[in-house]
């Protein structure tokens, strides 16, 4: 299989292009996705390649984008819609929750909504207010959508291919911080990474670190630091937070007996809470120490000057790892 080096942006772009070539029902809509190629250039070149009937700039209206995308999907197309930044998904919340997520159930399977909603996700790029949010828990809590958050180009491409081929709505959250952070060898051809399966980033025996998105990288960096200190950390990258691969997490914690959960979203009722509750239910007898949650605080994502304080970093995760090493 031919391999190419690609950034996360390029990987997603390739997935979009190849799926659009494979399946002419796939179309791209959103603000500035056309000639401009999206504000992060994720849809770059698609307008030139597929024309204005398949790569469509919409008016500036997120509820309109998602609401019409539902109609587009039901009419037989497979829209890949973009919300320009994570912080602007809220106007579309009602259409997502009340309709996209419910049409299959409401019609007992008669209608369904194969919609991919992409959006740049998370912090770390020192952006303006509302441009650094992490709101995945909302869509884990209210059911009916799947939620993907890749941490590297390989997964990103394969997950995007799967997302487009899904028969149900998928929120595809793209960590901004990773868009161009590094390149990775990925297959040139299309390939699918299944939704709902965590990836074992690194095997370890002492403690399990569970994370996703940019925080999966932060966690891995922390694991490396821990290694230097003689602690063997197993790192799990969830890749999709809905469905959650609880089995992978529970099995790992049963093995290591310790757990650190890392995400950048606010703490209360976050994905970390669900994971901790799940571990406490299913692996409590294996636990050798209290679990640690390293997350965003329950505050408004700060502006650039304070952002570094807010976002979890490898040192913070390392300290949590070390904390779990002092057993009960």
């Amino acid at each position, binding site marked *: 299989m031919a391999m190419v080096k690609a950034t996360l942006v390029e990987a997603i772009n390739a997935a979009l292009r190849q799926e659009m070539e494979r399946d002419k029902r796939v179309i791209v809509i959103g603000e500035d996705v056309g000639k401009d190629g999206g504000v992060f250039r994720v849809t770059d070149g698609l307008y030139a390649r597929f024309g204005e009937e398949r790569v469509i700039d919409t008016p500036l209206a997120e509820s309109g984008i998602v609401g019409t995308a539902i109609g587009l999907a*039901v*009419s037989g197309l497979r829209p890949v819609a973009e919300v320009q930044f994570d912080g602007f998904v809220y106007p579309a919340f009602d*259409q997502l929750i009340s309709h996209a997520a419910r049409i*299959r159930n*409401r*019609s*007992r399977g008669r209608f369904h909504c194969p919609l991919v909603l992409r959006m740049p996700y998370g912090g770390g790029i020192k952006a303006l207010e509302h441009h650094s949010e992490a709101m995945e828990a909302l869509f884990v809590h209210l059911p009916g959508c799947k939620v993907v958050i890749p941490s590297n180009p390989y997964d990103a491409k394969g997950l995007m291919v799967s997302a487009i081929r899904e028969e*149900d709505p998928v929120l595809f959250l793209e960590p901004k911080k990773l868009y161009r952070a590094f390149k990775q060898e990925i297959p040139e051809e299309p390939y699918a990474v299944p939704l709902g399966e965590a990836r074992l980033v690194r095997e370890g025996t002492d403690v399990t670190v569970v994370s996703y998105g940019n925080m999966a990288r932060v966690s891995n960096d922390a694991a490396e630091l821990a290694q230097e200190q003689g602690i063997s950390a197993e790192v799990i990258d969830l890749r999709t937070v809905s469905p959650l691969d609880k*089995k992978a997490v529970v099995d790992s914690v049963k093995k290591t007996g310790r757990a650190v959960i890392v995400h950048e979203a606010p703490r209360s009722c976050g994905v970390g809470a669900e994971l901790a509750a799940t571990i406490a239910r299913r692996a409590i007898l294996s636990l050798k120490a209290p679990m640690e949650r390293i997350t965003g605080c329950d505050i408004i994502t700060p502006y650039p000057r304070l952002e570094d304080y807010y976002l979890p970093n490898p040192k913070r995760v390392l300290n949590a790892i070390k904390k779990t090493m002092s057993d009960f």
Partner: protein
Amino acid sequence: MPKKVAYEGRVESWSVMDKDGKTDEKMMPKLSKEQVKEMLRWMVLARVFDDKCFKLQRQGRMGTYAQSTGQEACQIPVALAMQEQDWVFPCFREHPIILMRGFPMAQYLWYWGGDERGMKVPEDVNVFPVAVPVGTQMLHAVGYAWGSKLQGKDVATVTYFGDGGTSEGDFHEAMNFAGVFQTPTLFVCQNNQWAISVPRKKQTRAETLAQKALAYGFEGIQVDGNDVFAVYAAAKHALDKAHAGKGPTLLELMTYRMGDHTTSDDAKKYRPPEEIAYWRERDPIDRLKKYGKANGLWDEGFEQKCLDDAVATVEKAVEAYEAFPKPEPEDMFKYMYKEMTMDLTEQMAMLKRWLDEERQE
């Protein structure tokens, strides 16, 4: 260089038949005798259905229900004007058009009886599920029309909403997308003068609701919504445009909600009786009956037969509705995704255990 006129817009008001059933021949749309009779049959059926649902609710045999009585002429002629491949995206008061588009009546009752299977729309019925959150369905209609256009299919969509529905942001976004992408969409606003207890004039300062179309660069027409002929003419005009690739139209149908908002509401708290009396004199079925009789289309025997047939149809549907077996708890899980996730499988098993335990005790 001084003040110039940058834009001028206007909205027409259409009516064909007065309250006594007299029509304006110049405005009268082309309709066969059989078509007119069909309209009466369906309007009577819709009215009988509505009465029955109200009673079922009162008897505890059905859940909360939103009556359509008085608004039949906003819907039946539109169904008649639609092409077979066209779709309806309803709100929640569109029983007449939903039934006329072929939705099985007994199944439709399941929905109002609180059973999701009621909205498992049959494959050959081009109706989207009832939308409860006000204003949200129009975007689906626009998206569907847009998608059909992109796929080169000759499909128009018709979406319904009330005077209240025009205030939601989604109405605005739907109208705007329809204008920009010139989707073949007919927006039908049933202006029944009230949004629960809020009167039309408190809903917006605009003189007409039809003029809201001007904000999106397309046509809006105000129509006598209790006049089957005017509604038919306007719907036909709009749908012909849609099928000819000439984009969307907004119709404001002037009508009245004769009943309470729903069976949970008591309109006496906020509505003057004179107003109801005024509109009762303009009942859309009575007007069509007068027209039919005056024009020798039918006699009282025909009217009675319409009524008898309707009663029989509705009674049969109610029987089927009540004979329908209860849904299974598993159904709550099975349609969340194409395939059940591991979590849902576990939760379904958990629920089954709970239910077993509950039954045991």
